[in-house]
């Protein structure tokens, strides 16, 4: 296993049947990457290994984000104090089955991981002032009771429509089930017009669950401040742009917007928040 050319180990971790948290770099409301970055920073998680991108990425050039060239990364972090194994990665472009199996191989080999949580945002036709929810999908029914105790939604019915591919998180959950690893997909609701930017409220709500579930003793004072700042920015926009204000008020009253209105609200909000 250690000779697998796809794996690069910097420092073998010392965890005992940890829980594995997985998030993808591109996500609705930037939920997965922001939750993981926050945890890594606050818990002092250490990067200890990675999966090489060869065979999984296109290498047809590089992406630029926030003025900086990016390169595909698939990194494992360990947090010994809290017995957490954390994986953050760009979604693979090719060989999804092989890639996801590599994640589980890695996690099982080095740390005998016994449960999996995937993190993800899901766009919802809601306003940013509405309370967030986390929808869950489990691969073992026994997990539902614990999730419900934490106030998470556990009764989702869903069948992917024809032509719409299941998510990478769903695929990973299915593979985990085949290996008898208990797994949960966490899907935090994100107002659709915040899908391309950060939804700090959804990020905090997800972190809140993980904080309680793994007894992390995190203090979210810094996040609360950022949420207030984001709300303040959105308020500025609604004061400047009466159409945006009208759309948000309609959503708050449970009135559906037309497709064009959805698009316009998303465009205005994204441009405003990214510009500031």
């Amino acid at each position: 296993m250690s000779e697998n050319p796809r794996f690069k180990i910097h420092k073998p971790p010392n965890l005992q049947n940890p829980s594995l948290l997985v998030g993808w770099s591109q996500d609705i409301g930037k939920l997965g990457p922001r939750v993981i970055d926050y945890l890594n920073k606050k818990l002092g998680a250490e990067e200890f290994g990675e999966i090489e991108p060869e065979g999984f990425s296109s290498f047809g050039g590089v992406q630029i984000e926030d003025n900086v060239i990016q390169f595909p990364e698939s990194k494992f972090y360990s947090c010994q104090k809290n017995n957490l194994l954390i994986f953050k990665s760009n979604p693979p472009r090719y060989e999804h089955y092989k890639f996801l199996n590599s994640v589980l191989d890695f996690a099982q080999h080095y740390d005998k991981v016994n449960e999996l949580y995937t993190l993800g945002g899901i766009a919802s036709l809601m306003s940013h002032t509405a309370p967030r929810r986390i929808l869950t999908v489990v691969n073992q029914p026994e997990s539902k009771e614990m999730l419900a105790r934490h106030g998470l939604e556990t009764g989702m019915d869903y069948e992917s429509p024809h032509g719409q591919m299941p998510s990478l998180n769903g695929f990973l959950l299915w593979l985990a089930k085949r290996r008898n690893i208990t797994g949960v997909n966490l899907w935090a609701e994100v107002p659709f017009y915040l899908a391309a930017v950060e939804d700090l409220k959804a990020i905090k709500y997800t972190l809140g669950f993980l904080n309680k579930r793994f007894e992390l003793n995190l203090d979210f004072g810094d996040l609360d401040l950022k949420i207030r700042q984001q709300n303040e920015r959105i308020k500025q926009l609604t004061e400047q742009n009466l159409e945006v204000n009208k759309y948000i008020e309609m959503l708050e009253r449970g009135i559906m917007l037309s497709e064009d209105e959805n698009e316009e609200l998303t465009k205005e909000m994204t441009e405003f928040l990214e510009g500031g």
Partner: protein
Amino acid sequence: MGIKFYQEPKLEKPDLIVGWPGIGNIGIIAIDTLRETVKAERFGEIEPWDFFYPKRILIKDGELKDMEFPSNKFYFQRTNKKDLIFFIGEEQPSELGEAYARGEKAYQMANLVLDVGLKFGCQRVYTSGAAVSLIHHTTKPRVWAVPNREELIDEVKGYENTILMSDIAGRGGQGTITGLNGLLLGVAKKRGLDGICLMGEIPVYLQGFPIPYPEASKSVVEVLATKLGVKIDLSSLDDLSEQVERQIENLYQKIPSEVKERLDQLKYATYTKQAEPEPITEEDKKKIMADIDKFFKKKSEES
């Protein structure tokens, strides 16, 4: 990456008949119709996960119940004349989101299909696909037959309503068969198996539409059924053909009259080599193609 067998039937030198989706789904519809007609029984499958991303997820009451992948199934039947193995692939494995397989995955898939054929003593493989042609949709499609060995040419010449690549003017016997319906026969050649690809003609102006073209599938089924000595029931294909014909006629009515006039000339066009003078000239053909391109380019820009 593996093959799963539900049973291992005893078969004597079966022919392997293979269908994957392609233009107008001509090949897969033809092969599947034949498979249904002979009531072939499922006996194995290629495990899909190495080749495909899942196509459907089912969640009930918050629990992941099922993940469905494109299917890749083997069927068999013993007929009076021949034992048959069918392979129906719901999708071509594609690494770049393309409709056709290519590269390593395509080669692996082709070899797995042939592994099964060889395991049961198969010596011959048939595939089917589309031949994009300068024909009109009211014309009965012919079948272009391409063998993987020179020795098979004489046999193929004897098939009804069939032409060889060398019969097509200007081609000099050259051409390309895109995707697995072609690749499989190349790999079969490498592994010492006879192979023939039967391609049903589809009008050039219909190749980009996401509708099947069952008229061409019918032509392919007729050739295959005669060759294999199988009695066929084409009623399901006739029903589908009627539906598609209505769709095509609706589309045809929307085409500007000057383009339609050009397309109508295809009713009299021949693109195969022949002794008699052609009803339309090469210049006419060029104009038809230019008009078709122009019209559909405009349509695609509008949409």
